[in-house]
């Protein structure tokens, strides 16, 4: 008990205890002579520290005058760019525009692919993707059969095209999201107060 309270006596003296801990120390002090003595001694030490005189330092005006003479020139490069400047907001704006563009392109592609699969665009031969032709050629080479007559290969072909389209779309969006996060991180780091470039001794 004594040890616990003793560890709190300094905080008690400094007014840094609150709530139940403060009450606990007060109640203990009321009943414990040893801890009261300990507190008294600590108070004496603090009084000694505060009463110790300091030497006469350089007058402040002289100090300021000397300091001003030694202040180095600041360059514009020392100033961090303001977070609200147009350049900072241009980066996410461009990224968002790129994201919208990619999203639109992939949505349209999906729509066209679906329409083509449903047979709505049968007469428009240029809409067939290269991947489809590749699958067909491979199937013809390996199996020597017509894909239109083989339902398994036809399904595999569609799954493959869908997978590639989906993966490409995902890759684009992930890249844009990463870039945006990167920008946010840089913005946040520059916005926060930077620690001084000196080591902190502990």
């Amino acid at each position: 008990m004594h040890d616990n309270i003793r560890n709190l006596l300094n905080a008690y003296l400094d007014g840094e205890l609150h709530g139940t801990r403060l009450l606990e120390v007060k109640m203990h002090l009321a009943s414990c002579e040893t801890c009261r003595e300990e507190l008294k001694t600590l108070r004496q030490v603090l009084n000694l520290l505060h009463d110790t005189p300091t030497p006469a330092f350089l007058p402040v005006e002289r100090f300021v005058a000397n300091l001003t003479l030694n202040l180095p020139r600041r360059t514009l490069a020392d100033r961090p760019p303001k977070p609200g400047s147009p350049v900072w907001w241009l980066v996410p704006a461009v990224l968002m525009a790129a994201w919208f563009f990619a999203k639109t392109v992939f949505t349209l592609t999906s729509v066209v692919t679906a329409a083509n699969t449903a047979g709505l665009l049968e007469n428009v031969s240029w809409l067939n993707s290269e991947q489809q032709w590749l699958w067909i050629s491979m199937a013809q080479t390996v199996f020597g059969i017509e894909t239109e007559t083989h339902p398994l290969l036809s399904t595999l072909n569609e799954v493959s095209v869908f997978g590639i389209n989906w993966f490409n779309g995902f890759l684009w969006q992930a890249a844009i999201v990463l870039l945006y996060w990167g920008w946010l991180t840089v913005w946040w780091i520059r916005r926060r107060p930077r620690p001084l470039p000196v080591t902190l001794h502990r």
Partner: protein
Amino acid sequence: MALNQSAETEQRLIEQAQNGDRSAYGELVRRHYSGVVNVVYRLCGDAHLAEDMAQETFLRAWVHLPTFQPQSSLRNWLYRIAVNASLDVLRREHEAPVEDEKMQWLRDQAPGPEAALIQKEQALLIQQAINALPEAARSVLVLREYGELSYQEIAAVLDIPIGTVMSRLNYARNRLREVLQAQILQPEYDYA
């Protein structure tokens, strides 16, 4: 009200100084010189070195001022620089905060009344006891007693948990008590 005005003025001065206004920075230095030089003196124990360290502190602060967030406490920021600058120098000087000859200002005072002489002797002993503390405990003690920072502020300045502040402060004060009890503390010495 006056406190708010003073804080607003300081904010304005900081913004002006961040834009390169040297006279605004001079005004900020006037406001914080006393606190900084006192803290540095208690860390190193030498008046001339403390003035040099205070100058180093304000020079570093000037260079890094554009990155300072005006919403934060300038005093605490300056103390952080001051502690680092002082300990850098002390480390370069092989962890010898004060040589005896560097405390001549205490000894060279013309002998006055007995009480004044005793006080000077006490001041010498106390500064030596502070100097004998490990730098981690000394920094916490000095920021608390001479920088008048709260535990929370000390934790922020030194970038350590508040529990560490408490344990280092306990250690420092207990050490001081042990050293000073035999030499200075007497039952009748109590101002409280």
